[in-house]
Structure formats: structure tokens, C-alpha cells
């Protein structure tokens, strides 16, 4: 496949929503260890909003559709999850120059998502947050797209990088969110936000392959 289009992206987001639906209980349980035990619900609510926005705005051009998704996500009461993912989708919207994108343009789309995510998240790599999965996933995605142009392979590589990032985040001390006050006791525990990003990218990869 040499291009990436709106229909494909909708399928990817819907499979990501389904992955979160399967995992939300486990995510809440992870959050009970270092947080307040509700990340699974907030990410589930957020991804449901994504699905709803996709259904309602399916006829819109990709950029407008992603803007609709961003607004719906920000309307969720998702603690920090809704502003963070809302910013991400706003960034994706700004990168959606057409309904069908080349490999390079697809890379630019996801780079724009990450760039806008940075504006809301103050987190660095290693702070035990969503960033630990989202940044490596995006970097690998963009690099593979630019180097080989193989879009499905790029998403598989991104999903692997997200999973690896979420795994590595276990060893970190949390610098943000409710886990911030745990100090060294957070070491060895998964970050539910990073895990969610990993599930989302797994959904992307499975849908496109």
C-alpha cells in the first residue's frame, strides 16, 4: 500500500477503541497501584468519544473529522487524559492536508499529533507517562515511513516501539499525575497511560495489516 486514506484511519481508530474496551478493567487495576484506580474508565470514555465522533462526522474531510474527534475528546471528563489526547487529535487534524496521504505526509500527520501533544504535556521521556510510549512510537513510525514508504510495516514497528516504551516505563519514577507522589515505590509498576498508548498503536497496526 502506498497511500494512507481516511477510511483506513477510521478503521484503525475503531480497532484502537475496541482494544481499549477489552483492556479497560486491567488498566484501572494497574492505576489502583500507583494512582486512583480509574484510568481504565477515563481512557474507555475517551475512546468511546472518538468512536462517536467518527460515526457522526464520517462525511467530513479528514482534517475536520479529526477536529470533531478532538473536541469530543476534550468534552470528556477524563482528568488529564482528555486534554492530552484532545491536543493530540488537534495536532493530527492540523497535519491532515488531504483525505489520502503519501507515506511522507502520513509521517507528517503523526508528527503534528506528537508536536501538539508536547504543548499540553510537560513530560519528558522517562517521566513514566503516555509520552514514554507515544514519542518512540511516533519517531519509529515517521522514520520507517520516510525510509521505506511501507505504511503497514511502519505501523507494526510503531506498535512494537510503543509496547517497548510502556515496558521500559516500568523502571521509571513518575514525575507527573497522581503517581508523582509515589517516588521510588512506582518503580516496577506499569504506567497505565503508557500502556493505553501501546494498546492504541497495537489497534492501529492490526487494522492496517
Amino acid at each position: 500500500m502506498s497511500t494512507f486514506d481516511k477510511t483506513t484511519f477510521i478503521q484503525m481508530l475503531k480497532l484502537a477503541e475496541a482494544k481499549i474496551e477489552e483492556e479497560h478493567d486491567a488498566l484501572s487495576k494497574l492505576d489502583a497501584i500507583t494512582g486512583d484506580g480509574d484510568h481504565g474508565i477515563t481512557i474507555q470514555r475517551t475512546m468511546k468519544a472518538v468512536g462517536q465522533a467518527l460515526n457522526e462526522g464520517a462525511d467530513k474531510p479528514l482534517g475536520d473529522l479529526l477536529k470533531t474527534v478532538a473536541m469530543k475528546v476534550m468534552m470528556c471528563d477524563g482528568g488529564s487524559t482528555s486534554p492530552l489526547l484532545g491536543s493530540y487529535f488537534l495536532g493530527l487534524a492540523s497535519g491532515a492536508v488531504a483525505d489520502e496521504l503519501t507515506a511522507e505526509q502520513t509521517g507528517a500527520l503523526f508528527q503534528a499529533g506528537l508536536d501538539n501533544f508536547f504543548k499540553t504535556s510537560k513530560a519528558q521521556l522517562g517521566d513514566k507517562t503516555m509520552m514514554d510510549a507515544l514519542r518512540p512510537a511516533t519517531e519509529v513510525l515517521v522514520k520507517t515511513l520516510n525510509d521505506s514508504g511501507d505504511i503497514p510495516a511502519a505501523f507494526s514497528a510503531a506498535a512494537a516501539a510503543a509496547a517497548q516504551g510502556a515496558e521500559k516505563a516500568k523502571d521509571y519514577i513518575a514525575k507527573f499525575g497522581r503517581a508523582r507522589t509515589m517516588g521510588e515505590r512506582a518503580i516496577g509498576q506499569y504506567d497505565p497511560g503508557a500502556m493505553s498508548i501501546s494498546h492504541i498503536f497495537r489497534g492501529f497496526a492490526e487494522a492496517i495489516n
Partner: protein
Amino acid sequence: MKKFINDPTNLTAELLEGMALAYPQKIKLESEKMICRAKSKSADKVALVTLGGSGHEPALQGWVGDGMLDISVVGDIFAAPGPPKVLEAFQMVKRNAGILLVTLNHAGDVMSADMAKQMTEAEGITVKEIITTEEIRPSADEKGRGLVGCMFVYKIAGAAAEKGMNLDEVYRIGDKVNKNMAGIAVLSEIATHPSTGGECGEMGEDEMEICAGQHGEGGGVRMPMKSAKETAELLSGKIVEKLGLTSGDEILLMVNGSGKTTLMEMLISFRDAAKFFEAKGIKVVRGETGEFLTVQEAAGYQLMALKFDAETKALWDAPCDTPYYTVA
């Protein structure tokens, strides 16, 4: 989980509806998850807005009303409301006198408030924000979270706004309260999350935790369970140190029950804390015991103190009329 609830995904909407039905002369449910005054304040006075998750009743929306808040923007259980709803609140109360936003220092709340403020600037609405950080942390260089002390800011800055002071003055007074209050939470039993039915953490049978925050997220200091007196003295000592209290100082002291702790325990704890302060010559001139900001059925309490000056003391005593705090 054994709770009198209906749909676990609709808890917030139902509890807000209940509050609005119980206190129709004071508040109304304006749009979804937004509690406003029944009769709005005149537009030449500064408006007070706050935001935060539900599940902490009566906080925060229980203090909307004359002399305190104008609007409380409510999220879901323990989760901040999204930025567009905060923006909607700003649009509802926008006025030349300006808006004071009070945000408790929690990642989601701060982020939502921040995005809403950015959206507001484009619309020419003036908002000043106070982020409450009164929680005492185990290490001094760590910024505290916002606990029940926000209520002191609502009450005192709210009274200043009601008197017709301008935004700079209302902000100055609110900020002074924020800088002169300190609090600390002790937790002995963890809450159940009412939506999932899961525990919000874990706690050993004979254990308690200080600096515990208010969601069971942990991060405090665990120790064997202590008596009321030992606990109150431990917490009070940290407050004295944090606020630099000395003989002759006057304080407002609050014991805020987390949900399961009985009023009996709160009163005993208040007694022990008050005696500790009095023994140091620090005068407990105003006190509160009860459930102000709860965490479902968590056991424990927050000990909160505000060092008064003449201005803040007079404003604390000024009249207010809200569902869960009234001064005649």
C-alpha cells in the same frame, strides 16, 4: 461493593441533580455538570469559578452560593472536567469585573484550567487563577496537592468579591489565604471507586498513611496505626513547622473527615490538635469539624489550618449561604 447507586456510569449526573433538588433556593444545575447560584451575583462583582472531579461530596459544588462560589464545573468521579466545559463556565459569568478561578493542584485540573484559559484569552475574558497547593509533602521541595483548603479560599475570596472588591484585591486576598494555609491527610482505610467497584489502592490492617492525598493514590508515609492524640500531634507539628506558627498567632483549624471516620473520632482528633496548638501559645480562634471534602468511604481525615490576619479573619466571619456552608 455495597452502595445505594443506580447506573455506575451516571453517578455524577444523578448526585448533582439530587443536590439541586435538595437546595433549590440556593443553587441550580445550569447545564450538564455545572452548578450555579440560584440567583446570580450582580455583574459588577468579581465571579468565582472552580473545577474538579466528583465523588468528594459535598466538595466542591456544595459551596456554590452567596458569599462563596458562582460556578462549580464538575468532572466525573475523581476526574477533572474537560477544558470546553470550563470555557463554557467562563462565558456564562464573563463580566467587566473579571473572574477568579480557583484550581486545586492536580494534574488533570491544572491542565483543563490551563487550556480553558488559553481559549478564553482569545475572547477577551479576564481570568486570574489561584492554584491551591497547601498539602504538606514528606519532602519540603515537593509541591503539594490541593486538599480541602480550597474551601478557605472560596470562603474568604468569595466574601471579598461580595463586598465589591476588584479582581486584583480579590486575587491578593485569595493568594494570601493559599500561602498561609497548610494541611495534611491521614488515611487508615482505602476507598472503593464507585464506578468500578475496585479498591483505589491497598492498606494493611494495622497501618495508616500520612501525606496521603485524597484519592488513595498513595505516596505518603506508611506507619503502624496510632492513637488519635499521637496522630493529631504528629500532623499538627508538621503544620506548625510549615506555617512557621509562633506563640500569639491565631488560626482557623479544621478536621475534615474523609467519609468513614466518625464525628466522634473527628472531635477527639480536633481536641488533641487544638490542645497541641494551644500548648504552644497558638490560638485556635475558629474551628470546623465535619465532612467537607470526602473520598467515598475512605477512613481518615485532613487536618487543615489557616494562619489568620485581621483581614482574612473578618472575611471568614462574613455571611454566606451555600448548601453545605452557611454563616448567618
